[in-house]
């Protein structure tokens, strides 16, 4: 195993229950990133919406993103909170290489998607996805659903 692969494995292992590993796409094979969910500012220890959903800000650490224009007619990278059926896309904020905080996201289960967009102020997603990950709440699943217990894929 190469050093970079070993570091990648370690990075996954150290991810905590509020962390999201971001996966690149064929358009951006050198992009890497991770996110941490932190409770949004609140007078209480845990921030929730009026209907009881947890309210998070998202701390992002990203590297390897090329200039958006290298992917086409794009000017910025925008982070989106997306329901897992891809029907609701909520703009979280702009993203660049390095650290940034965007928010808020208030879904129970969601995907964190970073896409190149035509403008930094867009409110509707349209550009190519460059990084994505799933919220830790999405990892919960039936024991039997684990691939190990499925008759051994493929």
């Amino acid at each position: 195993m190469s050093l970079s692969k070993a570091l990648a494995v370690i990075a996954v292992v150290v991810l905590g229950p509020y962390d999201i590993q971001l996966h690149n796409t064929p358009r951006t094979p050198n992009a890497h990133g991770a996110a941490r969910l932190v409770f949004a500012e609140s007078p209480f220890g845990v921030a929730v919406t009026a209907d009881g959903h947890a309210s998070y800000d998202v701390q992002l650490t990203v590297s390897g993103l090329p200039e958006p224009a290298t992917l086409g007619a794009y000017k910025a990278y925008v982070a989106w909170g997306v329901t897992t059926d891809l029907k609701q896309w909520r703009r979280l904020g702009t993203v660049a290489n390095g650290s940034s905080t965007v928010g808020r996201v208030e879904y129970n289960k969601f995907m964190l998607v970073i896409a190149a967009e035509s403008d930094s102020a867009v409110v509707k997603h349209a550009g190519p996805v460059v990084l994505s990950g799933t919220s830790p709440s999405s990892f919960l699943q039936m024991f039997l659903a684990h691939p190990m217990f499925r008759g051994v894929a493929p």
Partner: protein
Amino acid sequence: MRRQLVIATLTALAAFAASVRAQDPGVSVVDFDKKKGGSQKIHELGHVVAHDGAWKAADVELEQDRNRPYAYLCGFVNFDFTIYDLSNPSAPKQLFRWQIDNPELHRGIGAMDGKYFKINGRYYYAQSLQFMQGTPDADLGAVIFDVTGLPDPSKVKEVARIRYPQSPGGFHNTFAYKHSDGRALYFATINQSKALVYDLEKIVKGADPATALVGEVPNPTPFRQIGGGGYHDFYVGYDPATGQDKFYGAGLGGYSVWDVTKPETPKQLFTITSLGMDVAHTFTPSPDGRYAVTETEYQYTPLRIWDLEAGQSGKTQNVDIPISAWTADWRDLSHNHEVRWPYVFVSAYEDGLQVFNLKDPKHPVTEGHFYTCGCEHEHGFGGNPDNGWQSTTSVEQGAFGVDVRNYDGLVVLSDMRSGFWVFKMDGFTGWNGHDYNMPNISSVQDWDHGPEKAKPKVTSE
């Protein structure tokens, strides 16, 4: 004179060894780096790499009507399927490719198994899919397309999606079956200890899949160590001797045979359980249901051959001793198979296409082979998407699926590493069970007339 006899004998043995390279008794294994090309009887007609990445394909499906020379290649982790026109088998022509929307946001093993079927004169193709929970479409089991308009790709239309949110993870294997009662049924594996049975006519007419779910077949052999486990694969066939539609399921814990003449209320007939059978994978009977070929999904295991007579006749509830076994190479693993009695066509992972003969079920004999993987031993499928599904121990790579066209004997094979292949075998110009004193029953369905009934039901006055 004696010396000449010895030389002649050795020459004959050498010739035999050259033509039969699988692990028949007395035959040595082939060095891994020499697994190239094929035996004299197997001829490569066509090959398409299909995809750019490390993983090219999962299963493969052939249409069976003479005027429809179409093959369907499941794109596996590429999350797509491709339709090829085999009018010229030496030059498969890509007609159509479908891919799940937003593929970059999906994670899973994707497009696994494909089955075509026909209802009221229209042809359909069902693509099974598997996506991980937490990513889009984790509840999506299959997408159904109307493919009647082929070869015009613009006439291929999606007509339905089957979702089963009660058990995320999709459908791994499926079987489309023309039931003796006239219905076109779709059997599907799920992440629960049962198989689902859908009425396909209801599905293509737009019914809610929940209302088209007409039956469930339990897995009676749960893997006790983990407290459960579902089916991995199955075959469904009509038994002319009993007038029953029978389900042959392979799942965690073993194999089971069910009477699904009334799929709403399946009745268990018998099982195959024994040591080493826990990871039961594939279960294919002979046309008359007397014998069966089974696979268990772990390295070093052979395909086992069973005499099912005691189970089919009700003399026993469980069969536990195979009558023989066959392997392409004891160091590897053979995967899916199609029975065209007495031949068994095997997609044998690292050992490519293999064909063996069960004319004497107690002594399987290799008919021929063609290596398609071109891969490094034990560097097969494993891990997860983040490491490119790459393992350094797995032999799960190479020939994944195989299908046989009954009217002319054309063989297609899907290889996880090398894509789509087309073959012919000398002396195999088609298959009809009657030529071998068997019912004309195989995985191929007669969508217009239903299963052949060797003993038509007699109604009394």
